[in-house]
């Protein structure tokens, strides 16, 4: 499908990027002379950047491919090339079937137009025909849960509402090949889940999907095959699960830690602000690949600004999205919430050794004032993989977790005694 696809960019100052008329004219004039004088010691232009270089891969009909990699690895450029927004510098790609691409939800939304009008406009922009939109209009509105605000100008919508409407339109685009860039990183948690469900549906309908995401949980769930990009090239491709595991093992784009950054914009409110979340092993190292035989520590660091009864919680989910358990830092004190004086805190949770099976895990953290309000929820904010093939507990056994539980083994009778007691019950005291 794609053979040695490459894209060269010239980097530099704004003037360079845009080009100025005079510059281009003078370059044109100088060009013949440059041929004469510069030949032989042609200097490599340092400002050249191959955003995508020699990317070759093939996607089968109906396959869902997840494209992962660090920021700037060329994922979005690759999608731009495949969706024909920009032309490749070298190489070729062949797409068989109608192509729909969503590099952004709500592209072309016009703030002055109403929700209804924007459904039509945005639908047409992402490639639906007028009759497509007419046919699916009710479905779109129902999906967005925005029927009441349909005749309100979009500029009066909250950003969450805009995203809802935009995604509802996008979700009803039905090309044979769907190209999606990280569009699920928006909206509230409940709506995100709904969107994920829809994406899963699309992938299961036998449509071909190319999906870029930083969310390892999502790609592992939705995609069959993975493409890991690094510095514009393909670092690895293969079954999604394997690619994700390798990617995380390599440092995984800091998947094992999350820094909230700017305290003013960090998740939270004037009661509490999150500072970061980290996964550490028993030696205190922040790692994303852990040994199943050793405990795993999850650290949630936050600033308490007002003394209120607080509860910090974490939830562990598997790559398939199954929630394994939820635990809170108020559990041990057996209280709903614990008053904490203002200050910087770290809530550290120990996930015991020999509990998790081999695989990928995703952690959601939240903080709340129980029964009053939720301060923040960050879905799948960090992830890690549990490895160690020689774990005490092999991973072939059935079940979501493989805890090492306490067993007591007691011999209650001898064999000859049992022969004698053949008709007696096996164990007394029931």
């Amino acid at each position: 499908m794609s053979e040695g696809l490459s894209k060269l960019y010239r980097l530099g100052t704004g003037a360079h990027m845009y080009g100025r008329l005079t510059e281009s004219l003078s370059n044109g004039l100088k060009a013949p002379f440059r041929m004469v004088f510069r030949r032989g010691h042609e200097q490599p232009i340092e400002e050249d950047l191959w955003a995508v270089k020699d990317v070759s891969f093939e996607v089968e009909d109906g396959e869902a491919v997840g494209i992962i990699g660090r920021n700037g690895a060329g994922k979005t450029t690759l999608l731009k090339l495949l969706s024909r927004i920009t032309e490749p510098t070298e190489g070729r790609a062949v797409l068989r079937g109608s192509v729909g691409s969503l590099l952004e939800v709500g592209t072309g939304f016009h703030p002055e137009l109403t929700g209804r009008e924007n459904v039509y406009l945005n639908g047409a922009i992402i490639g639906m025909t007028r009759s497509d939109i007419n046919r699916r209009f009710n479905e779109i509105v129902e999906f967005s849960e925005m029927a009441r605000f349909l005749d309100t100008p979009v500029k009066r919508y909250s950003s969450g509402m805009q995203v809802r409407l935009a995604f509802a339109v996008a979700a009803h685009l039905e090309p044979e090949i769907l190209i999606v860039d990280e569009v699920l990183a928006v909206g509230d948690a409940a709506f995100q889940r709904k969107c994920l469900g829809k994406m899963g549906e699309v992938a299961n309908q036998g449509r071909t999907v190319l999906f870029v995401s930083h969310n390892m949980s999502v790609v592992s769930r939705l995609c069959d095959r993975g493409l890991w990009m690094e510095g514009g090239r393909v670092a690895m491709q293969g079954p999604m699960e394997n690619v994700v595991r390798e990617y995380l093992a390599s440092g995984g784009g800091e998947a094992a830690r999350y820094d909230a950054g700017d305290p003013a914009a960090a998740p939270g409110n004037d009661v509490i602000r999150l500072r970061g979340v980290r996964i550490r092993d028993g030696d205190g190292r922040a790692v994303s690949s852990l040994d199943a035989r050793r405990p795993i520590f999850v650290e949630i660091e936050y600033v308490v600004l007002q003394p209120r009864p607080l509860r910090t919680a974490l939830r562990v989910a598997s790559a398939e999205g199954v929630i394994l358990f939820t635990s809170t830092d108020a559990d041990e004190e057996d209280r709903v919430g614990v008053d904490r004086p203002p200050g910087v805190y770290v809530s550290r949770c120990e996930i015991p050794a020999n509990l998790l099976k081999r695989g990928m895990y995703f952690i959601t953290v939240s903080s709340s004032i129980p029964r009053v309000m939720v301060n923040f929820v960050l879905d799948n904010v960090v992830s890690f993989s549990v490895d160690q093939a020689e774990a005490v507990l092999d991973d072939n056994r059935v079940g979501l977790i493989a805890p090492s539980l306490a067993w007591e083994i007691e011999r209650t009778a001898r064999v000859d005694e049992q022969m004698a007691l053949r008709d007696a019950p096996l164990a007394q005291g029931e």
Partner: protein
Amino acid sequence: MRDSFVEIRPSRGLGKLGLSELWRYRDLTYFFVWRDVKVTYKQTIFGGAWAIIQPLLLMIVFTFVFGTVLNVQTPPGVPKPLFYYAGLVPWTLFSASFAAAASSLIGNATLVRKIYFPRLILPLSAMGSNCVDFLVALSFVFVMMFAYGIGLSWRVLWLPLLTLMALLTAFTMGLLISALNARYRDVRYAIPYIVQVLLFVTPLMYSSTQIPERVRPFYFLNPMAGVVEGFRWALIDAAPVPGPVTLISAAILVPVLIAGLYYFRNAERTVADVI
């Protein structure tokens, strides 16, 4: 949209104009025009009346400055306001369409960066809402003619052709400028300047009969000169019959348009990177 087979590769040479693809995306063109029409007059008091107000205000100014103060000669027996208005209607269509088409790529930069569609749709659809305005403004000519007691003649049948010529001129220029504008931001500053220069070399404030005989053939190479005088001739018989020079300027438009289309297509390949 409904391509069953797409090959993506670096294009070389002139390539194809991709007009059939343009046709497949006609719904998008329709929605862009529809958007512009809806948005233009949202949250305005006068709404669609603006289409008339703009040329009407210019008409009043022209009638006062050129008709009264400078006492410019206009064809005898033709009310001056009508003379100016009849010229301003196609001029407004041209200047607004040209300006809209010229800044269409830049104006829709976010779309261009995120979505694929034939970029030609942008300058093309940018002119659409001006056509609606034009029809409104034109209908007011008829109202004025009725008020002045001037009847229609068979010559109005030429109006569609003259309108088409105004649109083609605007499109051709807009096409070139929009592609240049995406790459070289200098061009943006040239747009109002170009319109201003054309305003003076088009017979809006005066009649083309005042142009010296020797210069007239060159003067009419400006397609808009032929269009404006053509409108006056067709509506109120206030200008000479459009001559062969107008035909020649129309004939010149065609190759320039085709060259412009190729230039635009060529720029289109990388426009998402530079915009």
